[in-house]
């Protein structure tokens, strides 16, 4: 492997006629510049032009953005919404704490008006959700779990044991066999390993 090209912020990488700007870059006067210190990567993604991006070993400073899948921990619940801390964006852990809100109407896609937040989440649950808006001045990131793949992935029963999902809306404690309601995410393979 030839040594990869390195760059620092402000370096001109190429013209927009040669590449499409990817992450870690920005456009100015028809040229693509690096906005990060890292390795320059050109990748063909089936498009006419390769995508040029700058990557660091530690992922770029991701902030939760609209459409991103995030992993969060539920911190509190009330009848209208659940408050969470966002721990991961995609598979990148966040170093600092960001708060988010899952409103009642965003818990699931169907029968929105019958949702009860208490039967969907409990504090301490690990939830997979998607960012729908950055929120306004008063509220934080707005998240949704209204997709099959989204919802609770790890939850502990009242006995303190990690529960196993038994349907899309129930989980069971392996010790007491008590069932508890949750908005359960369809299990994804990578989460089984954890």
């Amino acid at each position, binding site marked *: 492997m030839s040594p990869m090209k390195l760059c620092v912020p402000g370096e001109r990488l190429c013209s927009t006629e040669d590449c499409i700007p990817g992450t870690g870059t920005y456009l100015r006067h028809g040229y693509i510049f690096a906005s990060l210190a890292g390795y320059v990567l050109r990748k063909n993604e089936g498009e006419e032009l390769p995508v040029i991006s700058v990557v660091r070993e530690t992922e770029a400073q991701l902030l939760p953005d609209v459409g991103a899948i995030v*992993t969060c*921990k539920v911190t509190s619940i009330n009848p209208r919404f659940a408050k969470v801390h966002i*721990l*991961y964006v995609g598979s990148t*852990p966040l170093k*600092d704490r960001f708060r988010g809100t899952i409103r009642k109407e965003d818990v699931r896609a169907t029968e929105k008006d019958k949702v009860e937040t208490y039967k969907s989440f409990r504090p301490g649950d*690990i939830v997979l959700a998607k960012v729908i808006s950055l929120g306004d001045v008063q509220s934080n990131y707005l998240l949704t779990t209204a997709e099959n793949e989204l919802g609770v992935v*790890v939850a502990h029963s009242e006995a303190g044991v990690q529960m196993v999902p038994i349907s899309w809306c129930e989980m069971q404690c392996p010790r007491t066999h008590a069932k508890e309601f949750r908005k359960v995410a369809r299990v994804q393979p*990578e*989460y089984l*390993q*954890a």
Partner: protein
Amino acid sequence: MAAGFKTAEPLEYHRSFLKENCRPDGRELGEFRATTLNIGSINTADGSALVKIGNTTVICGIKAELAAPTVDAPESGYIVPNVDLPPLCSSRFRPGPPGEKAQAASQFVADVIESSDVIQKKDLCIEKGKLCWVLYCDIMCLDYDGNLLDACIIALLAALKNAQLPEVTINKETDLAEVDFQKKNRLKINRHPTASSFSVFDDSVIIVDPTAEEEGLSTALMTVVTDEEDRLCMLHKPGGSSLSGEKLQDCINRAVMRNREVSKLIDKVMESVKAKK
């Protein structure tokens, strides 16, 4: 998702290591992190030292000023230690006046100076009742990864050993002080205290030199200060779970050993600094 386990369930993560008698960074339970020392790097200070214990970095700078001694103790000078934890060293500290942790550390350092007699305050007197030295020992943490106190004491001791004060005489005619920067004198170090910190996990497992994360998860913290003649100068255990006498003795024994290691380190670095000059 091993990383996920670490952030989501940090305590469980640590326990799983301690069960195997080791720690997440690969150390044994009784092992200190690599300790390095750099002496005299700050030219604007009268004495300075930079200490690194693992990631934890602390710098101590000594500035000497002249003042009148107090009426109560006309023959002694002042030593004023302050520990600062600027927001630079960790995201847990905010800008503004020192928080509890910094205040506690300052007080701890002051207590160590007092109880160990590292410098005899009467050595700082220039003219009885008239003029004496004030040693401002400002300690700043540059990287906070646990075990602040050990680092502070090493930095303080090394900076004191490095310090040189100009000669001051009082002109008999004018009754004013005269300073001669050409003649500089070292301080007389009376005792060599060092601190060793321990943290207690789940009320039972004792580890030395905890990192910031270990400090946060442990149930009790303890710092033992001993001097070069194995005398116990101070024992600092702010609350937390209780500890048996036996365990305490183990800790003290470990602290005595640590004192030897640190003294050796300071001497070695002092030698190399002298050799350079």
